[in-house]
Each structure stands twice: as C-alpha cells, then as structure tokens.
C-alpha cells in the first residue's frame, strides 16, 4: 500500500514536472529568436560555439540527447538510438538505431551513417581536422554490424562515456556524402532533424521550416523558426521586449530580466538555472611570489564570495558560490561542507585577517603590486575583474588590470606570460570527468594554464574516474576539491554563472538547463496562441 502511494506520488510529480504534458500542444507558428553570434561554418563536428548550435541544431539529430525535460541537463534520452546497453564490463556499448529515420533528401538514416559520423569525429582521415577527437580517446573502434546496430568498443571502462555521447555537436551526417567530401558539411546542411533548411542570409538570419516527414510523429509543433543574428545585447533585449522575438537561448543579464519583466509583466516568463560555466583565476606557479601556496591561499581568502553572490548577481550573470561542480548537481559539495574551504568561510573578517597573516608570513609587503590579466569580454569578465581587484585591495594588494583582446587571450595565457589571469571553463554537461580535467597537471593537460604539476591531484582524478559507487566517488571528488582550492589553492573560483532566460510566455515545451548548448533541437517547443 505504502509502495503504491509512493508510485502514485512519483507519477503525479513526474507529470507536473513535464509542463509540456499538462497542456495540449498547439501546432503552428514561427519561433523567432536572436542569436548573439553567427555560425562560422555549418559543421557541428568542427565548431565550438553556441552560435552554431542555436540556429543549426534543429536541422540534425544526434545519437543520444539530453532529456528535453530534465532541468539538470544530465539524463540520457533516446534519439537516433532507440535504446542502448552496456556489456563486457563496461567496455562495449551497443546501440539500437531507430528505423524509419529519413534524411531531408529522402534517404534512410542507418547504422552506417552513425558509424561514418563518429568515425569522422574520433578517427578522422589524415589531413582532416577533428575538434573533439581528444574527448573520445577511450574509444577503440566503432562497428556497424547491421542497419540498426552500432557498437562502440572502449579501451577501458569509462563512467563518462554515455555523457560524452550527449554532446549536442555530434550531428549524424550522411555516410555517402562524407565519403565523397569530409568537408562538405562545412558549407551545406542536410540532416534528419525536425526542421529543414530554408536560407541563411549572411549577417542577417537563418530560417528553417517544419520537416513534415520527421520520424517522431506529431513533432515538431512549430511551422518553422527564424534565428536572427544580433550581436548587441541591448538589441536582443529590445527584440524580445518589442515582442518581435520570443526568446534568446543563451541568457540575459539580471538588469535585462528586470526591465523585461517590468515592461511586459505576465507576457514574460523567466526560467533560471545555475550555468555550467565559471570564470576562474589561473595563478602562474612559475612566477614569484605565486609559487608560494601561502600567497595563493591569501588570494582566495581575500574574496568575499557570499557577499558577492548577493550583490554581483544583481549586475552580472553570476550567482552561486561554487566548488568544482555546479551547485545542486549530483556530485556537488553541499554548501555546509563547501563553506569549510579557504575563501568560502562565512566570516569574511576572519578570512581577510588570515589572508594578511599569510601574506606577511610569505614576505609579501603591504601594497604589493601585480598585474591581473583579464579577457576583453564585458559580461561577466569585467564585473568579476573589478570585484576581485577591489577585494584584493582590501588585504593590501595593489592590482592593476590588463585587458587583452578575446582572440589573442588564450595564446598569451598559454605561453605563461602572466601573473594571475582570468580563465574560463564551460561545459555542455555537468560531469566530474569533464569538469575536473581542466585541473590536471600541466603535462597531462596543456589547457591547465597554472603551470603546476601535482601528482596527488592527478591520482585523485583517476581514482574518482574509475569509481562506480556514487557515494565513494563523491568523497574522492571532495578530496580533490579540497586539495585544488584550499590546501594548494592552485586555481581559485569566482562565482558560478547564472543563466537567465526571460522569454515570451507564449513559448512552451522548452526547459532551461545548466548549458546553453543543450536542448536546442526545438522539436518539443510550441507557441501558445
């Protein structure tokens, strides 16, 4: 009886959490949305920008996708693969490919196309570039024994393999086309997605229209969509405010949200989520005095994160105080535990006193001057830079900011030509392996700009990666976090980004996730009259 009640409660909760199911979907209408940047090419396997995902993803399908109703953005959900199973102790994954899926040119999509697409990503022909090859280093080979089966064989078991297949970039292309020209998809669009390509006017917009033969019967609900390229964020807000656009999928600032809400009231619905992006400060371990961990600890201790969480969240797209995992996600450290780390204490005076003590102990004089390099992007680099410089000033550090143009930025940082610099981490899915890879020793990961080697940290990473027990894995992640942020203070975290999507209340069937790369196939989205 108790069991039945629980099941019932669960079912009710499930239904309520799926807003799309409560109301009957309406067919028709064109979804209009501004996109802050224009796709350089159409090839998802090649590009790394949401500027490609937002206008182009609706033309394609991926092998798996993230459950469109999962606000956490982590649940695997079938797409081209109807189902999958793991065998051979986690070394083999077998996918059953859906039948009846057709490309926009009318041909059938089969296991062969899936294999060809993933081969292009993981085992590119010589001379063909692949952006995400390194992410799938664990894959040994891919097989397509028949039309409806694809098998991935791994070199060793990997807890994050399925998560890596949820990547929104891995469009399934047609094998025959790839065989003729692996670069064909850079300039052409031909997928199996819920929408078909109509036009792209350079510097203006991309238009898609409903794919009437879509395999998922009844979908998409929209007649079409229009993605408009608008760089200026003020103009994007104006478009939503003037009800000429329904939604912008990347995110607006708190000020924009408040303006929209006060101008349009109930016509605006706001969805918010912690955002799987964070700015962190890389500290150059090869430069004195930053080779001294007391100095690095002082830098993190000087930051009043709790106060900033309240004040900066009014003016910038940041909010939660975070460790190495997005707060609220399965592997994140609960706030009570997190507040024990250096720089996370709730008593800022005690924290600053400790910072001053450490600086003194390390022989850093009052008024010590250093340069903080920041990237020339206004939001949220600028407010966080201003905030940190002010915080450091309060423990007697005199910091000058040098802003470097975005395109040149990582080149400069990678060369180690800095003392302390803003670094950036952003993922399409919250997953410890992907999120913590950044912090591995510099010889294992060239994108670790702190230039340190820490075998203890590396060992902890490997240990958590192979751990299948969730609770045990959490414990190891916590040790990793404590070593990284507190004991060694290799890197220091600012605040977790905060994604704010104020959209027209007419837009239904779309759920915000922690990633602006996810949930943009638009098949479930519909417009209320």
């Amino acid at each position, binding site marked *: 009886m108790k069991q039945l009640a629980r099941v019932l409660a669960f079912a009710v909760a499930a239904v309520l959490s799926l807003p799309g199911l409560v109301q009957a979907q309406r067919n028709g209408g064109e979804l209009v949305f501004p996109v802050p940047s224009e796709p350089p090419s159409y090839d998802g396997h090649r590009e790394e920008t949401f500027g490609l995902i937002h206008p182009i993803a609706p033309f394609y399908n991926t092998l798996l996708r993230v459950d469109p109703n999962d606000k956490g953005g982590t649940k695997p959900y079938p797409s081209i693969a109807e189902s999958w199973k793991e065998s051979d102790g986690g070394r083999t994954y077998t996918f059953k490919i859906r039948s009846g899926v057709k490309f926009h040119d009318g041909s059938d999509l089969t296991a062969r196309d899936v294999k060809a697409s993933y081969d292009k990503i993981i085992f590119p022909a010589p001379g063909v570039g692949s952006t995400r090859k390194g992410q799938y280093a664990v894959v040994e080979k891919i097989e397509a024994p028949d039309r409806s089966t694809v098998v991935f064989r791994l070199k060793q078991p990997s807890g994050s393999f399925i998560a890596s297949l949820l990547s929104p970039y891995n469009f399934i292309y047609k094998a025959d086309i790839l065989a003729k020209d692996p670069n064909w998809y*850079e300039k052409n669009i031909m997928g199996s997605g819920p929408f078909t390509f109509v036009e792209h006017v350079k510097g203006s917009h991309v238009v898609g229209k409903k794919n009437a033969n879509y395999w998922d019967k009844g979908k998409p609900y929209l007649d079409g969509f229009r993605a408009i390229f608008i760089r200026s964020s003020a103009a994007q807000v104006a478009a939503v405010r003037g009800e000429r656009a329904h939604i912008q999928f990347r995110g607006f600032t708190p000020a924009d949200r408040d303006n929209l809400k006060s101008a349009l009231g109930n016509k605006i619905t706001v969805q918010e989520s912690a955002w799987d992006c964070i700015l962190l400060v890389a500290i150059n371990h090869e430069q004195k005095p930053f080779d001294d961990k007391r100095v690095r600890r002082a830098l993190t201790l000087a930051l009043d994160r709790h106060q900033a969480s309240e004040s900066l969240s009014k003016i910038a797209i940041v909010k939660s105080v975070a460790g190495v995992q997005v707060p609220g996600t399965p592997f994140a450290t609960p706030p009570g535990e997190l507040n024990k780390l250096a720089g996370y204490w709730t008593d800022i005076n005690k924290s600053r006193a400790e910072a001053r003590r450490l600086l003194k102990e390390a022989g850093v004089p009052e008024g010590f001057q250093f340069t903080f390099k920041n990237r020339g992007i206004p939001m949220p680099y600028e407010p966080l830079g201003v905030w940190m410089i002010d915080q450091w000033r309060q423990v007697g550090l005199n910091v000058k900011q040098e802003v470097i143009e975005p395109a040149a930025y990582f080149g400069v940082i990678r060369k180690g030509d800095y003392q302390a610099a803003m670094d950036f981490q952003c993922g399409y899915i919250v997953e410890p392996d992907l999120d913590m890879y950044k912090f591995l020793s510099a010889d294992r990961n060239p994108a670790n700009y702190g230039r340190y080697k820490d075998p203890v940290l590396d060992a902890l990473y490997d240990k958590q990666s192979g751990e299948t027990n969730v609770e045990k894995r959490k414990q190891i992640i916590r040790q990793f976090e404590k070593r990284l942020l507190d004991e060694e203070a290799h890197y220091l975290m600012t605040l977790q980004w905060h994604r704010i999507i104020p959209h027209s209340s007419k837009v239904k069937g779309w759920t915000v996730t922690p990633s602006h790369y996810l949930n943009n196939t638009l098949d479930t989205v519909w417009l209320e009259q």
Partner: protein
Amino acid sequence: MLHYIIKRLLLMIPTLFGVAVLIFLLLRVVPGDVVEARYMSQGSQFTSQDLMNIERKKLGLDQPLWKQFTSWMGGVLRLDFGLSMWTGSPITEEIKLRFALSLQLAVMATVVATLLAIPLGILAAVKQDTWIDYAVRVFSIAGLAMPSFWLGILMILVMLIVFKWLPPMVFTPFWVDPWENLAQLIWPALAVGYRYSAVATRMMRSAMLEVLREDYIRTARAKGLWLKLILTRHAMKNAMLPVLTVIGLEFAFLMGGLVVTEQVFNLNGLGMLFVEAISQRDYTLTQALVLIVAAVFIFVNFATDIAYAWLDPRIRYR
C-alpha cells in the same frame, strides 16, 4: 587638365599598394590568428596542436609570407578578394549586405548634413559676429563635441520611453520595404548627420566669409546688387568648393568609420564587420575591407580634386 587627371590616377596606385602592404603586415603582427580565435576562444580543453596545424594548412597560413602576399595581390588584381578565412564563403557574399547598409547610411547622413550645413553656414557668415552667428557656431561645435554613440544612446532611450520605439532587428534593403528601411536608418542618419554637418557648417561659414571679402563681391555690393542675388549667384559657387571637399571626405569616412554608431544602433554595417573580422583574425576579410574603404576614400579625394579643378578656373595645376 587631362594630364593632371592622369597624373592623379597614377598616384593612386602606389597609395593603394601601400595600404595593401601595411594592412597585410599589421595583421601578421597582431597576436593570434584565425585558427587560434576559432579553437581556443571557447576555452576548450581538447584542442590539439595537430588540429591547429591541419586548419592552418587548409587556409594557406603555413606558407611563407611573401607567397601569401603575392597570391592575395594576384587575386585582388583580378578583382577576386578570395574566401573569408572565418566562414569560408566568398568575401563578396560576406560584404554585400553590409556594404549596401553602409552606403545607404552614408548617403542619408550626407543629405542630412548638407541640408543643415549649407543654410546654417551661409546664415552665420552673412550675420557674422551677431548672436545668430554665435548660436550657429555653438550648435555646430556642440555637434562635434558630443560623442555620436552617446547621442545615440540618449536618442534610443528617449524614443524607448516616449515613443516605445525599439531599434530594428535586421536590415531591410530599401528595395524590399522602403518604409521599414527608412524607419530603421533615419535615426542613426540623424545622429551621424548632425555631427557631420558640424564640420561642413564651419567650412561653409569660413569659405563664405572669405568669398564675401573678395573684391568682386564688394564691388557687387557697392553697386547695390541685392544681397540675396550675390549670395546665390557669385558667392555660393565659389564657397561651395571647399565645402564639397569636406563633404566628400566625410562621406568616405562614413563608409567604414561608423564602428561605434553601428554598435549603438545595432546596424550590421562595414564598421561592425571590420571589428568582427579583426577580432576573428579573418585576414582575408579584413584586408579586403581595408582596401575597399581606402579605395573609396582615395577615389572620393580624387573626384573632389577634379571637381575643384573643373569648377574653379583660378586654380592652376602643375
């Protein structure tokens, strides 16, 4: 005259070539390249050196500089600007829409400026050192003093609050929907035109003053000819020359120099494209843009000089 025209035309060649060399070298000195901009700007952890090399090879960036330069120049001589390094599409396609917008905005701003400058300049000159003169000068100097992006911000703010007007989302070409098109461009044209008129008004005033001081005008005045007649018949023609020069040069400037105004009014013109191209290290596109803008500038310069020579027989050319 013909000799002069030919000489001036020939002088354009080394200048354009110099512009080409300069921008080519400048871009190579700027740190970072298009491949870095593409693969490292998202903070990706998996970008390999291998991938960057493949991409550089694809774009010909592994070639020695002189080879890159000659192959680019070869294309330019055949009026082929090549492909954008960022998008891989032909540059003419990338520029088409933006060029139309910038050209139209420049023309509209010029009209606004001329309509303001000529009457105001004449008025100020005729009423020299009276309060009218001062008022005109303050008005025009204020136009020069206000940053046009600030004026734009204020204009948008006022129109938003008072008229509920919002900047448009995309550029609609005139031939598609003239009304929509004008509604979009009239405000930036006013903001830019005002600043632009300030230069022209001052030039009109001083040129007019100078002409009014010349002997033949004095004679005409002494003979009792109607002032208005003098102004229209004699003075206007000669005073127009320097004004023409200023208008021409400003026009050329407007074609590529409206970076900030375009940003404020959300216009996708050549100025914004330039900033984008530089920030993406799209060498080919930036080079093409600079050449085009410089060519427009040099040509307008040339045209006004010729017009000058043609209109004013007093000027002799060596």
